[in-house]
């Protein structure tokens, strides 16, 4: 007994010593890396001369964070993880009883989303709710819908599409142009935008889908850029970089959201506020996103959905079973594009303004990142990833206290991409298959068992 105790004690001191050593190393490396980036800042004074400002305090914060962080990781987090792993190996077949929460996650999430606007209204009042409903609610839901749409192409059919934002642009411009030139209403144009985007999906798909893997990715990337460049240069129609402004708002059964006598606020005897329009838009995008999810779930149980997933697993085997793989890929492309287009027309109606700047490659990359982080194919995982990624960057704006540490010129939004990248690396190390790595089977004989992500393939075309 004494023996065991002494060995664990010596192991403990050994770990602490190692942690101290590594902490010092990490601190030194951080110092070396950041001494020029953070410690010194170039600036211009009033006479336009370059001056060096010294920020040793900030540098000290960086080094301290790295040192303490490394110490904590080596001394406490790593042993704790190892212990947990050992415990799990020791007791592998404790049946995983799903809690009530995780079983009914989708239902709870939907109820929470429906209750979200009234709760916010009650908590922070009409004007205060604007930010929470618009920046957090609508913004996140747009990305959820886009990512669910892209999920059909990338997650189910396994076709790597780097130009998804092109369909978003087609939808947005379809609404913007058709409503300003022909005065068609939002409700008419919503499906039309979807159909037009799907059509573009097919037009792009025909020449491109015989390509596979990296080639497909590059061509779709180029297609996204082509659409953006057309929007910039076709100035007679799209007004180029100025964009289309003054896009008509959506109406609720003909009721307008404006200050007129028969507007929404007047009709219900409420004080005039743009918050009601935002809340209406919130429910609209919620409904559209849920429609996307519903259709995806239904399609997965249809022969076409199974063919998409089979295509992701093995294209040659698909053909040997009589599946027309070109048509199957085209339908995946068109369906994904359609939801992108619908989301695009919603985007146009929400902003009231569209310009090519909203449809840069970065948007495609963010949507793809959400799909990959969430776990390809999993609707729940993707929704969580969208909340984390988009909500996270919105929260960055709120972190004004960081200015106290990093100085008054610090703008946290600028570090958005840095944090995005960091989050992706962390998640991919921790869960290589995304938040929800397992796959739900679409049919079963005896019992429904989730399929571990290690069996599913990512597709190669």
């Amino acid at each position, binding site marked *: 007994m004494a023996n065991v105790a002494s060995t664990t004690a010596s192991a403990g001191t050994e770990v602490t010593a190692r942690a101290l050593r590594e902490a010092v190393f990490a601190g030194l490396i951080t110092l070396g890396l950041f001494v020029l980036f953070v410690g010194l800042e170039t600036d211009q004074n009033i006479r336009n001369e370059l001056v060096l400002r010294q920020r040793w305090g900030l540098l000290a914060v960086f080094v301290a964070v790295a040192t303490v962080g490394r110490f904590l990781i080596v001394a406490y987090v790593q042993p704790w993880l190892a212990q947990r792993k050992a415990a799990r190996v020791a007791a592998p077949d404790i049946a995983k009883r799903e809690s009530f929460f995780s079983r009914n996650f989708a239902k709870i999430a939907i109820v929470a989303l429906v209750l979200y606007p009234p709760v916010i209204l009650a908590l922070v009042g009409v004007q205060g709710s604007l930010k929470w409903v618009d920046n957090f609610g609508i913004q996140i839901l747009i990305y959820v819908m886009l990512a669910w749409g892209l999920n059909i192409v990338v997650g189910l059919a396994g076709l790597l599409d780097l130009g998804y934002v092109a369909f978003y642009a087609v939808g947005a411009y379809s609404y913007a142009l058709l409503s300003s030139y022909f005065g068609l209403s939002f409700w008419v144009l919503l499906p039309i935008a979807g159909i037009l985007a799907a059509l573009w999906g097919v037009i792009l798909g025909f020449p491109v889908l015989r390509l596979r893997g990296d080639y497909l990715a590059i061509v779709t990337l180029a297609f996204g850029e082509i659409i953006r460049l057309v929007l910039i240069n076709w100035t007679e129609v799209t007004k180029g970089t100025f964009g289309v402004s003054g896009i008509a708002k959506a109406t609720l059964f003909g009721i307008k959201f404006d200050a007129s006598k028969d507007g929404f606020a007047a009709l219900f005897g409420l004080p005039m506020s743009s918050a009601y329009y935002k809340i209406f838009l919130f429910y609209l995008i919620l409904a559209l996103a849920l429609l996307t999810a519903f*259709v995806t779930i*239904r*399609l997965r149980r*249809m*022969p*076409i959905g*199974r*063919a998409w*997933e*089979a295509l*992701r*697993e*093995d294209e*040659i*085997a*698909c*053909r*040997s*079973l*009589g*599946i*027309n*793989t070109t048509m199957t890929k085209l*339908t995946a492309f068109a369906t994904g594009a359609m939801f992108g287009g619908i989301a695009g027309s919603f985007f146009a109606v929400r902003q009231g303004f569209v310009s090519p700047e909203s449809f840069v490659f970065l948007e495609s990359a963010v949507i793809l990142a959400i799909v990959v982080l969430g776990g390809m194919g999993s609707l729940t995982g993707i929704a969580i990833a969208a909340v984390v990624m988009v909500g996270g960057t919105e929260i960055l704006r709120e972190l004004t206290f960081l200015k106290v540490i990093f100085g008054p010129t610090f703008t946290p939004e600028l570090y958005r991409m840095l944090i995005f990248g960091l989050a992706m690396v962390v998640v991919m190390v921790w869960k290589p298959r995304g938040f929800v790595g397992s*796959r739900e*089977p*679409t*049919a*079963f*004989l*005896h*019992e*429904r*068992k989730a*399929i*571990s992500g290690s*069996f*599913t*393939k990512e597709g190669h075309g």
Partner: protein
Amino acid sequence: MALETTTMTNDPILKVEHLSMRFGGLMAINDFSFEAARGEITALIGPNGAGKTTVFNCITGFYKPTMGMITMRQRSGGEFLLERLPDFEIAKRAKVARTFQNIRMFSGLTVLENLLVAQHNKLMLASGFTILGLLGFPAYRQASKESIEVAKHWLEMASLIDRADDPAGDLPYGAQRRLEIARAMCTGPELLCLDEPAAGLNPRESLALNDLLQTIRGETGTSILLIEHDMSVVMEISDHVVVLEYGQKISDGNPDYVKNDPKVIAAYLGVEDEEVEEVIEEIEEIESEQGGMTQ
């Protein structure tokens, strides 16, 4: 046996005529002709690299042959020139199903889902090309139930019913081979092409495979074209054997005939033509000894 050989030429399900396939400078198949009779098990054998898989790929449309004609005649009398059809049409319309030498499964789908994917075209029609199905028409629900019954039947035949809800990638090797055959059968083929189905199986699994193939032929009347290295399988179950070497046919007949064909023996043992006679003598000696022992 001799009688069967004559009936088979009367009603061939598959007729391959003057098939040639060239890869650059390599003539992988050279003027190869044979017939597979309806309702029989035809084996295609030959040393490594003889071109057997290439013949399969030509029949099932994965390669377009340089020359030659491949005719598939269905029970209903419909004829298809396979060299002109795209690969998926060969499975869909000509009703030729195949398996692969290196197993190709949908490893992330469950065993049951694998079999449902195989019934794609049937279900696609029933679901009105997805639209009626999406709207919840009952015709699709009915067809979907039936497709599960078909899958269940083949799962039982391949003794995979206990693993129906497991991912296909989780099955042991032998079970994956059986799954691939069951999946091919779910397309409702008239001709089933199997590329080395017994490769990597242990003797017990190999026996079970023989039974499965016999039942398939007996129950559904599906004709089978089989590539095989395992001679015990070939001799046991096939009605007709075609031997290929360096892309050319060197022998064609019933198993007993082929087994004793000097050219085949030479090809398998890798001897020069002059030595063939000696080899045959040796083999005959050995066989007579064995015969004496069993008696």
